[in-house]
């Protein structure tokens, strides 16, 4: 498929543990086209976050082939994977993972600096403005609320203009109203930038805003469907 941004074939993930190997993912096949909004839902431990990590090259699949933006992640080394993320992906986590010793502005500018962009700080300031935190650029993460930290993380993820936005329960640590606001922002910015989005969430309201919902159970995709209006209620 020409428009495919993500192609997964027969993905399996087995991780070692003290009690023996644990099979996290089993035989996942998935194709995500450019511009799609894919929501991944399912109970805890079903493998949602692991699948997202494999798509982002942050975890290596034990079996199968992973192709993202045309690159076979299985044959890339750690550094090539890092550069692939730098040039093509933005990632948002539930626990934000901002660098505590850097200000909000510096956090947003970091991926741009890593890409060697001379306008890193101008662009970072613009992105902070876009998430409504232009006035908080000199603040450290510890001086920001949870919602503000997540907005900084979102600005950081989208600042380089990635083709793919990966979000792992981005509202999981936020209260309902703040989570909704962050989600609004995320969808709006992704739309504006034309980024493909893969989103792991427990929130049905947020999942419903996606163009496609994957439901996972026991390491497998048990359902792949379009959202049903009003299902959340």
């Amino acid at each position, binding site marked *: 498929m020409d428009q495919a941004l993500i192609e997964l074939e027969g993905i399996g993930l087995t991780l070692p543990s003290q009690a023996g190997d644990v099979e996290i993912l089993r035989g996942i096949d998935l194709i995500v086209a450019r511009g799609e909004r894919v929501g991944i839902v399912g109970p805890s431990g079903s493998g949602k976050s692991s699948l997202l990590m494999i798509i982002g090259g*942050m975890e290596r699949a034990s079996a199968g082939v992973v192709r993202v933006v045309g690159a076979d992640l299985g044959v890339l080394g750690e550094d090539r994977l*890092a550069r692939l993320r730098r040039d093509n992906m933005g990632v948002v986590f539930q*626990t934000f993972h901002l660098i505590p*010793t850097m*200000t909000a502005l510096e956090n947003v500018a970091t991926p741009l*600096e*890593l890409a060697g962009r001379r306008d890193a700080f101008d662009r970072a300031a613009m992105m902070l403005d876009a998430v409504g935190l232009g006035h908080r650029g000199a603040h450290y993460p510890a001086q920001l609320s949870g919602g503000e930290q997540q907005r900084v993380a979102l600005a950081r993820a989208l600042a380089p203009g990635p083709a793919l936005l990966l979000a792992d329960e981005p509202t999981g640590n936020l209260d309902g109203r703040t989570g909704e606001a962050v989600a609004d922002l995320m969808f709006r910015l992704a739309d504006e930038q034309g980024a493909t989005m893969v989103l792991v969430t427990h929130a049905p309201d947020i999942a419903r805003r996606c163009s496609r919902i994957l439901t996972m159970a026991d390491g497998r995709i048990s359902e792949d469907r379009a959202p049903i209006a009003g299902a959340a209620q």
Partner: protein
Amino acid sequence: MPFLVMPFWVSLALRELRGGLAGFRVFLACLILGVGGIAVVGSMTAAIERGLAAEGRQILGGDASLSFTYRFANDNERAWIESQGQISEVADLRSMLARGDDRALAQVKGVDGVYPLYGALSLSNGGDLAPALAPTSGVYGLVTEPVLAERLGLSPGDRVELAGVPFDFRGTIAVEPDRISGGFALGPRVIALTEGLRAGGLLGPGTLFTALYRMRVEPGAKLEKIRDGFTDAFPEAGARWRDRNNAAPGLQRFVDRLGAFLTLTGLAALAIGGVGVGAAVRGYLGRKTKTIAALRAIGASAGELFAAYALQIALIGVAGIAAGLALGAGLVALAGPFLAERLPVPAEFAVYPRPLAIAGLFGALTAALFALWPLAQLREMRPALLFRDLNEGGTVRPRGGMLALLALLAATLGWAVIGLSGAPDLALWVVGAVAGAFITLRVMAWLARVAARHLAHACWLRHRPGLRLALGAIGAPGGQTGDVVLALGLGLGVLAAIGQTDANMQRLIRAQLPEGSPAFFFVDIQTDQLERFRSLITDVEGAGRIESAPMLRGVVTHLNGVPAAEAQIDPDGAWVLRGDRGVSYAAAPPPGAVITEGTWWEAGNASEPLVSFSAHEGAKLGLTLGSTITVNVLGRPVTARVANLRQIEWQGLGINFLMILNPAALAGAPHSHIATVHASPGAEAPIMRAVGRALPNVTTIRVRDQVTRVSEGLQDLGAATRWAAAALLMTGLVVLIGAAGTAAERQTGEAAILKVLGADRARILASFALRALILGALAGLVALAWGWAAAWGATRFVLDGPFVFQPGTALAVVLGGALLNLAAGLAFSLYPLRLRPARVLRRAAG
């Protein structure tokens, strides 16, 4: 089944300990190293002290010894001494041993047939001493230390001359039982029969020698009674007493001071280790945050949790101290037989409880002091704060009771160090210096953090995220900056201070030689040889100024009529009364003499004995103008009134006498002369040859040789000090490793985030390396600053010379700091780089 119900905090402590000691490796290593080091030094010192005490007879060469300066005991004195038991008469003097034109300064011991009374002297060839020294065809024999035989290329049977008197060289000395009681010798040992020396005229009136009468007394005889009996019978003899209980007082003092110095170095190491202990406890409690928060939330009180964790740390601390003591005692026991053969002093190696108890006490107090702060912080933290982040709790200040306990622990440790180290004055300085260094380094670390935090956001750091991350980490609260600056700063600071002081000391010693110092001292010049001596020197091209003075030696027996032993004096002046001192007489002040008080006597004044005394030492002894001082010269007491006080520049290496009397005071006393000769380096050998040939009885002391010997001795001492500093640095390195290990947890998270953002491993590693390099160099700079200050003080006020900054040593310290921290940092940075970001981030989120 009924069990003894343990309090909650005890059972919690025991349950928590089931997790093992993995988080306490640095804690244990710091304690084991510090306590073990102090235990080793204490056990070694005790072994040597016991050895000296046990072999006091052998070292002294008798149960007791009486020594006379420049004379043998008279008939009455000798008869009295002989009535106490068997005696051995020994004469000790300096002389020149020559083989042809090759000459060497030697410390000569004249012995009799019963020498040694205790122990055995053995020769390298296995032969006996008596036949080796006995005359053959009218020529007496002598034996020497191997180094002297080697220097002169001697083989048994060679004819040599001692002060111009022929002797046969018969072999070298393998073991000299009383070798170390002699103190500082200017040359290697030569042993000959006293009768041979006498026959050659080497022990005539005016010759500089010491006669020693060693006694073997009846078992059970009271030595003090014998000493007092002699003093009562011969109050004016001016003889010095020594007995088996104090056989080598100079050596004993040296061993005590060295032991105290090394103990204090060990304590400084323990203080550095304390930083590691504190960091380990902080890290451990940090990892337990969630457990502690949960326990607080379900009703455990702050006091119970404090007690539980304090008990855990106390139990682990006891294990560390026990391991340190076992290591220290075990090392000494294992190395004992090996060391006993190689040490120049006797030692009895065993397990000595007192030094082990002291080491254990120091370890316990240090561990308690450094562990208490983070424990006290835990007590003050609200559960809500615990749930958030322990780093925020780092700013919590313990309250009154805990602060008082901390102060009490610090005071007890200071008191224990000063009271138990064996050198209270030195200990006071060390405690002050370590406390000062701690405070200074803490302030410097804080300043460094503030500066790094500001620098991290400077405009010029834009587009350098690696450097910004490095500076941000250095400036972060709760980071490793404080521990690294303290641990490296203390260790490297001591190295910097030693390096700068050592280099300045060597420079001062060398620099003084060309500046007006004499090339030679000549002693034993007889009065009738003085003119000949002067003309011999003047004839040599390149010879310069000659100064000479009459030379006698005397023992100060009374100050203002009070026996010297009972006089109240400044301890710094005690050395004047300890042995015999040089005495001279002069009608006019010596050239360049600076009289600070009083006036010089009129030439020809013979009304009463007068003395010109050193102003500095006089003040220490409480002497002022008009005071009286009694000096025993050649068995005759001379009581002189202080007519003036003189300023003496000892560093000038000229002829300086503490006491110069008016000529009338010493009229008729047999004496020789001492002379100094200035000469160009090229003239030194011809002067030695000329004097050696024409006046063989005159002893030549080449200043350059002695300065080299002193310089070498100082280098040895410097090397020993550097080893001690290296031990400090080793403890510092353990703390660094601990700090790097703690930092690695933070770096793991940072590496994962940076990988997600697109940084490759080389870039991340470069940032980590940069952080370690900057922090290490910073610690090196701080160490250099306070090491420089200490060295400046030591050079300026102790060595009394100008301080010159030594850039080589300084650079080594800064580079050393940077590289040490880099090595420790990199060792822990590689692991985080290998981890997949997903696993790290998932763990961090969980």
